[in-house]
Structure formats: C-alpha cells, structure tokens
C-alpha cells in the first residue's frame, strides 16, 4: 500500500479512535512508514480526547434563572397558589379619603432598596468571588471560556440550589414548595410572604378602587418578581455593578407604583 492509498482509505478506517482491526496491507504500511503511522496515531488520539469534551463546560447559573422565568411565564411551573385572601372590598366610596401612609411607604421602599444595594459586600470580581455551595464536582481543567468572561464567577462552579431572593421587600405570596423527592435535587425553598406594606397597599386599593385592584396587584407582582430576580442574581454575583444598579432601578419601579397609586386614591 502506498501513502496516497492510505490517504484514500483513512476516512473509512479511523473512526472513533477504536481499535478495530485494519487491513493487513494497511497495517504493514504503517509499520514501515513513520509519517503515516504518526498521522493515524494522531487522528485516533484526537478522536479519543474529543470524547472528554462532551460534558466539560458548565453554563452560568443565569441560564437556569432565565429558563425558570420563562417556564413560569408560560404557566408550565404550576406550584400551588395559596396567597392569603385580601380584605374584601367594602361598599363603594368616593375617592377622597387619604392614604397618607403610602407616601412614606414609597419612600421607605426606595430607602430599603438603597440600603440593600449599598451594604452588600463587593468582593474583587476577577479572582475572589466565592462560588455558592458546590454540590457537583468542579472540573479540574475548567477555565474561563474567553478573556471577556474573566470578570464573571468561575464557570466551573455549580450548584443544585435554586435561585431565591432573600432580602426584603420580596413579597411573592406563594406557598412553600413541595418537598423534593429527588436525592440530588435542591432542598425545598419557601417563597417569601407578601410584605405587610404590600398587603396593606392592596387592601386599600380594594377598598378605594376595587376596579383597579387586579391591575395594581398584577403590576405589584411584576415589580416584586423583578426585585427578586435581580436580588437572586446579586446573591451569586455580588460584584456585578450593573446588576446592582438594576436592583436600584427595580426598587424605584416599585416606588413608582406606590406613587401612582397614591395619586389615584387621594
């Protein structure tokens, strides 16, 4: 067999780095031709090393955050909703009573957001961000995928713990999650209760403007979900300055909602 004949049959023969037997004349050529022998050896090595890449990369936790958000939006996540029943609407009254407390509450929401945002520790992002609790092994050779990702937390770090907000105000009035049956899954996380301010807010809206209650409640859920989402992200990446600013913006949106309501029901 000549070198060019080897070249012609190689695509059929070198497959998956397997030790499948080569034809006799092919084998004997390899024994006598170091170049072809090296080539075949290299190609088999490449094929076998490639297998190790199959599960070598870890996606950033934000991928799950986005998937979960989309599943919720599409209603595919259907955990039981046992929100507390709000005070039923009393008979209609004129919109002249004051809800003076809403103004300081709106200010308090903003101040709480500012406090949370400014008092979070800000470790150096490049090298000292500590990974959250790791429950799956970190690949030995994990490395940032590109120089642009150097500032992000190490991609090899992973956790099975779902993302949850832990800072006030985070009032998603849902029940605790059902206990996990999967051994390797995350521990159950209870959704935070609706904050007293939010409950009072919706109670007053129910009383003063029952026709708008559903609208305000829906918007309140949106802004609270936004706050929780960013807070959860910041819990993992506390050094992300842009996310920190986004959290401030999310609190400002909530304050805006309170202010709009205040203007309506005064």
């Amino acid at each position, binding site marked *: 067999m000549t070198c060019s004949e080897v070249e012609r049959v190689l695509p059929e023969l070198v497959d998956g780095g397997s030790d499948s037997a080569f034809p006799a004349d092919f084998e004997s050529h390899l024994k006598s031709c170091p170049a072809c022998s090296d080539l075949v050896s290299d190609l088999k090595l490449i094929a076998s090393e490639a297998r190790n890449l199959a599960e070598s990369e870890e996606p950033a936790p934000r991928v799950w955050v986005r998937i979960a958000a989309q599943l919720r939006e599409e209603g595919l996540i259907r955990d039981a909703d046992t929100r507390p029943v709000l005070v039923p609407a009393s008979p209609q009254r*004129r919109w002249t009573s004051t809800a003076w407390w809403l103004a300081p509450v709106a200010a308090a929401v903003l101040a709480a957001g500012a406090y949370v945002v400014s008092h979070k520790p800000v470790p150096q992002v490049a090298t000292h961000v500590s990974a959250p609790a790791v429950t799956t092994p970190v690949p030995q050779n994990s490395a940032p995928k590109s120089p642009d990702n150097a500032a992000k937390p190490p991609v090899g770090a992973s956790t099975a713990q779902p993302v949850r907000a832990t800072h006030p105000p985070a009032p998603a009035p849902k029940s605790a999650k059902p206990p996990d049956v999967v051994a390797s899954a995350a521990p159950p996380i209870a959704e935070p209760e609706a904050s007293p301010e939010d409950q009072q807010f919706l109670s007053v809206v129910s009383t003063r403007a029952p*026709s708008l209650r559903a609208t305000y409640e829906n918007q309140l859920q949106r802004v609270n979900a*936004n706050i929780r989402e960013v807070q959860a992200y910041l819990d993992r990446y506390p050094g992300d300055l842009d996310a920190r600013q*986004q959290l401030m913006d999310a609190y400002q949106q909530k304050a805006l909602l309170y202010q709009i309501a205040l203007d309506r029901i005064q």
Partner: protein
Amino acid sequence: MVVLQQARIDYTTTVLTVVLVTCLSAASLAETKKEYSYTVGPKANISVETQYGAISVKPGSGNQVLVTATFKSDNVEVDQQQNGNRIEIASHLLRGKDAQTGHIDYELLIPPDATINLRSCSGPLSVERLQGDLTLEGTDAVVDIRNVENGHVHVRTMRGPVTLTDVRNGHVEIDSISGEIHLKAVTGPLVQARSGSGKIFYDGDFGSDGNYKFTTHTGDIEALVPADVSAAFRAHSVLGRVRHDFPLQPRHSRFREEAGRSFMGTSGLATSEVLLRSFSGKIRLKQR
C-alpha cells in the same frame, strides 16, 4: 288562531319595550359639552385631572385658555378654579359612577408657553406643539406627545404606552412599569426612559450633545440611528443579548466588555452619551 294573535301581541310588546329602553339609555348617555375660558399671563400653570376620559392639549391664540369638557353622563361634574396664573380642573365623580358614566373628555387650547399637568387613569393623553413644561401621568392611558420644543417633559404610566415624536431641547423623563416607550426624533440635553417590562424603541440621531439613558428590566431596547450618528455608546444586559449592527470605534473605559452581553464604542465625534441598560431584555443598536 288565538294563540297566533297572542304571540304577535307579545312580539310587538317586546319590540316596543326594547325601543323605549334604547331611547332612554341614549338620552341618559347623551353627550353634553361645557366650555370654560380663562385669561392668563405668560407661563401659566394648568392642571387637568380626570379618572376616566381623554385629555387633549393644543396651542391656542393669545393669552386665553379655552377648555371644552364633554360629559357622557350627568353622574360627573367639573371642579374648576383659577388662582392668578394657575388653573386647576378636575372631574368630580358622583355616586354610582363607572368608566362609562364617569367619563369626561377634555380639549384644551392654551398659550404655547404654558406649563401643563395632566392626569387620567384611562386616557388617552395627547399634547402637541407646545413649548412649556409637560407632566403627564396615566395608569393605562396611552400618552402621545408630538412637536414639543424647549420644555421639560415628564411622563409616568403604569401600563400605558408612551409615544414621543419630534420633542427637542428639553429634559425628557419617562417612567413606566410595563408600558412600551417609543421615541422618534427625540433629542435634548437629557433623555431618560425607564420601563420594567415594556420595550423601549428609539428612532433618531441622539443629537443635541445630550445624555441618553434607556433602562428596562425585561423589556427589549432597540435604537435605530443614522450612519452619521455622533455618540459614545455603552450597552449592557445582565442576562439578555446585546448587539450592534454597525462598527463602533473602540472606547477606553473602566467598564469591561463582555461579548454578547455588552458593547461600548463611539461613532463620529461622540458628542452625545448613550447608555442602554437592561437586566434581561435584549439590546440592539441598528443603523437606519
């Protein structure tokens, strides 16, 4: 035969009843208009508030403020007063009102330099060809502002979409929880738009050596600019995709770029500053 005649009588009675009820309903919903006229000095301050109803403001002539209120029922009144250069007009809802019976539409003709404050739950709110400061607020109101110059523009909505067209030379600040924000030919020293889940769309040249900041939480941000735009751009989405469709000159900055999640660069002389930020929305800078 007797049965047939009875059926015919019953049918006729029913038709007559329906006609009568319709006429009565129409009478109760008949529109009535009232006009109010005020004389003001330069830079008057005019406020109009209605829970249900449209408010439309256009420039009038001279130093007159002319208000036309269209009532859909008599379950609502207009409270109005003038204190010097300040005019306040508000819908006063009586018992049993709803969006239909409590509805008043306002049309205003005002001096172009007047300051205007509008508030309506349902809207729409529209303002055109003015030069004073504008403050508009609506829960679900559609807000439309066009051909406004030199004045500051402040808009707040909960879900109502906001459209600004040809607004120049003033501060522009728009906040919405979930309404979409469309800005076409909007320039000024400060143009700031924030929406939680609504999309922000900008079509213009980011001119006037201004400072432009667009922020969303989940809403997408899209900017359509001419080839000769002169601005320094910075865009970042924490979770969403970010891209620009035309080349930018590199820009030295303390902020780190992250491929697919942020970009920064300049175009032309970079006389304006443009900051596009989102938590999970997509951001796109396109060339017209």
